[in-house]
């Protein structure tokens, strides 16, 4: 299955793009997807416990099982207001 990844703020700066696409095995979780990206971009490691997840523009959990076509957003700590 194929998912779209969206990255914001410093996570985008670390990865170098705001959006990318990844092929994942069936049953893959958001956590697996994160680990794939972290393996490619060492700078992400610091965010392992400081990242929030949204799937299809709804907050979700790292344990969330992904489905084909999902949009998965990784969000660093927020600073609105």
């Amino acid at each position, binding site marked *: 299955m194929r998912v779209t990844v969206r990255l914001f*703020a410093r996570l985008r700066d670390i990865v170098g793009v705001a959006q990318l696409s990844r092929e994942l095995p069936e049953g893959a979780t958001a956590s697996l997807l994160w680990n794939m990206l972290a393996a490619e971009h060492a700078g992400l490691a610091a965010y392992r416990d400081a990242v929030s997840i949204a799937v299809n523009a709804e*907050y979700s959990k790292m344990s969330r099982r992904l489905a084909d076509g999902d949009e998965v*957003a990784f*969000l660093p700590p927020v600073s*609105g207001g």
Partner: protein
Amino acid sequence: MGAPLFAVTRDPLRLEDLIQAIGAQADGGGTTAGAVTTFLGLVRSENLGRQVVRLEYESYEPLAIKVFERIAGEVREHWSTPRLALHHRLGSLRVGEASVAIAAAAPHRAESFAACRYAIERVKQIAPIWKHEYFDDGHTWIEGALADPDDRGAREDAYKRACA
């Protein structure tokens, strides 16, 4: 077409738009609100001893709107019939410009103050919005709260700060 209740926008924020959006003068229930409290967050010229030149805000926009709706729902769980409007600015903001505007209408002032304060606390906790600070000799992302809308402690903290 009136102004929306919830918005992320690159246009300057105008309190008048939020007050119109909450329809303070024509309540759905037939009872007019007696109190409107608003909040404006402005870009400060100084942060942590740095001279701020400008801020750049970005957002995960569809989630931000859902989060604003969620905050309004939380407000209605806590206070009697308050109506809430919430707009956040995106893009490049100069010192003194408004980054966030909130308006809360309620029958009485205790509720409008509490609802408005609760809302800005929750925006800072869970709205998917980030600011990049440009100061006199550098720039940096600002990272605040780890956003978790189900964190009961954070929600209770916002409620306490609202002094309800």
